[in-house]
Each structure stands twice: as C-alpha cells, then as structure tokens.
C-alpha cells in the first residue's frame, strides 16, 4: 500500500516525533508507515485522515490503484457480491 504521509507531514513541517505524539504511536511506527514497510490498522489510518483533514483514500492507496480511481467505489466481481 502506498501513502502520502511523508508529504503531508513535510507540508506541515512536523517531525516524525511530533506526528507520532499526535497519533499516540511511536516514532518508529510513523517511520515504518512512511517507508511503506508497515500498513497501519484501520483505526490508525482513520486517525491520520482526521488529523490531516483528508479522507483515508486520499492518503493511502492500494498498489496499482491511483487516488482518483480510489474515489470510485470498487466494484466487486459477480461471485463476490454480498448475498
């Protein structure tokens, strides 16, 4: 999963430590997310979205899916439609 966390943090001139503190996680967690070694949990992703005032899909995107594609709901294949 790709993300724009580093860019958003740089825009606000925050250090990893400052961002980590606002989210209640360690600096290592922020570093691991920024370097895309770790995908945050949904609650943490939502917290990040709230902190930066953006929806989660604008910050986190699946590999190979652009953020504009992410605006559209993903259509499930027929066999995966909810019953």
């Amino acid at each position, binding site marked *: 999963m790709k993300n724009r966390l580093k860019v958003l943090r740089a825009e606000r001139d925050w250090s990893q*430590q400052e961002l980590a*503190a*606002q989210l209640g*996680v360690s600096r290592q*967690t922020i570093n*691991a997310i920024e370097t895309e070694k770790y995908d945050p949990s949904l609650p943490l992703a939502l917290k990040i979205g709230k902190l930066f005032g953006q929806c989660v899909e604008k910050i986190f995107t699946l590999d190979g899916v652009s953020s504009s594609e992410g605006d559209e709901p993903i259509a499930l294949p027929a066999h995966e439609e909810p019953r």
Partner: protein
Amino acid sequence: MLSVLLHRMRKAAKDAEKVAHTVEEHRQVYGTRLLIRGLLWVSIFMLSRGLLEMDFGPAWLRVVVALFPVPFFIWYLWTWFNGAAAMDELQRRIELEALGFAFPATAVYLMTIGLLDLAITLPPEDFSLHHIWMFLPIAYYAGLWRAKRRYE
C-alpha cells in the same frame, strides 16, 4: 489570521512533544524494567541451580530452592504483559512476530533433539531439560531482532 494559525500549530507541536515524551519514556521505562527483572530472575535461577548442583540439605529444602526462581519469573512475565498492553500497534506486531518465530523454532529444535537422542543418545550433561529450555528465550530474542529489523 495567519499568526493565530501559526500560534495554534506551535501549540499543537508543543503538546505533541509532551505526549511524545510519554510514549518514548514508556518504552524506555518498560525496557529498563524488563532488563532489570530479567537479570534478577536469571541471577536467582543461577543461584538456585548452583545450590542444587552442590547436592545439599534434605529433599524438601531442595524442592524449595528449585521453586524459588518461579515468582521472579512470574514477576518478569507480568512486566512483559504490562508493557505489551501499553505498546502501540507496530510494537505489538513485532512482539507477535517474535513469538511466531520462537514457537516453531523451538518446536523444530526440540523435535530434532528428541530424534537425535533416539538415534545416538545425546549426552545428558549437555542436552537435558537443565539446558535445552534456554533455547526458548534465545529463539524469542532472535525473533525480536529479526522482526525489528524488518520495520526499521
């Protein structure tokens, strides 16, 4: 308007720094406690083992000496559980991956020792229960090192 915004951002950064200290301090305190209690437990274990190898006293006293390290180990585990409860999600994942490595590694180790013992009868002074349990913490710390490296 801009100055108000800047003031708010500075305040947010200051508040963030305060919490950061809490998060980082917690990790340091937890790590130090774990190390001190771990060393205390290992020291008591070595003392008990040394005494038992001297073949002293009646059987009931030897049982007491053999059980003496147990509360210290429980204290160590209690510290570990408390620390894990206050960890953030990545730290918990690292701990889980360390245990996920240690458990199968220990299973393979014990299975191999068991089969080798059947094959060639391993010397008990090197491969008895007195010694082989030490592989468990070694496997855990090896798993911890491996998992930490993955997310660095």
